């Protein structure tokens, strides 16, 4: 992992965390009609900070540490705290940011490849 981190910097960890958050938001959307389901999300900045602090915290532990419950704007009768408008915007934002991180990684790989080729 240490080599991978120096090669890809922050972006490798960020991509793994984005993927975890994608699964989390997909869970919220899947449970939009389940009574008593409590929507959850991770504080991305906090998780990224923990995962890149260098004290041996891996991505899974970092994501678990930054896990929290979503506070609904309006309470529903069946105890479900999923608000589809919120979840869908968060999901879209997360997907775009995943793609952005991927572009950063692609740029980095391109740079390294051209350095290796010596062109």
């Amino acid at each position: 992992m240490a080599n991978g981190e120096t090669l890809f910097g922050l972006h490798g960890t960020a991509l793994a965390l984005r993927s975890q958050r994608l699964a989390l938001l997909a869970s919220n959307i899947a449970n939009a009609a389940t009574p008593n389901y409590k929507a959850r999300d991770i504080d991305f900045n906090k998780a990224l900070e923990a995962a890149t602090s260098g004290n041996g915290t891996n991505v899974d532990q970092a994501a678990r540490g930054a896990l929290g419950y979503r506070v609904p704007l309006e309470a529903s009768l069946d105890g479900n705290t999923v608000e589809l408008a919120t979840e869908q915007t968060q999901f879209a934002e997360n997907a775009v940011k995943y793609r952005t991180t991927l572009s950063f990684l692609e740029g980095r790989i391109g740079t390294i490849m051209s350095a290796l080729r010596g062109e």
Partner: protein
Amino acid sequence: MANNLSVFDIAGRAMSAQMLRLNTTASNLANASSTSGSEATAFRAIKPVFKTVTDSPGVATVQVDRVVSSNITPTKRHDPTNPIADKNGDVWDAGVDTAAEMVEMIEASRQYQNNVQVLQTAKTLTLDTLRIGK
């Protein structure tokens, strides 16, 4: 991904749960105008009960726990010409709230669409990740 439950599993199983909900709605609407000779045998609306299936904290999908009959009482109607009417000339109309079923149908189909969208996004992102560096 470290999770046993991938985004594809989450959205896929949610889709089958929503599909079952749509099926129960279809059955209810199909039987909405059925009549019966006694209150006990009259059709009552059926409803699925959703349950969360948790993998690791925060990662969860949904499944249909069981399908229950609703407690809407069938309405008694006096119709002596009906061949299945009882000795008082009464028949019972199915206990189905058609307006509520229509709302249920729209909600189920919208939530199904949401899960399809999740699946599509996850698929695109996974394929983009596979193409990295090419």
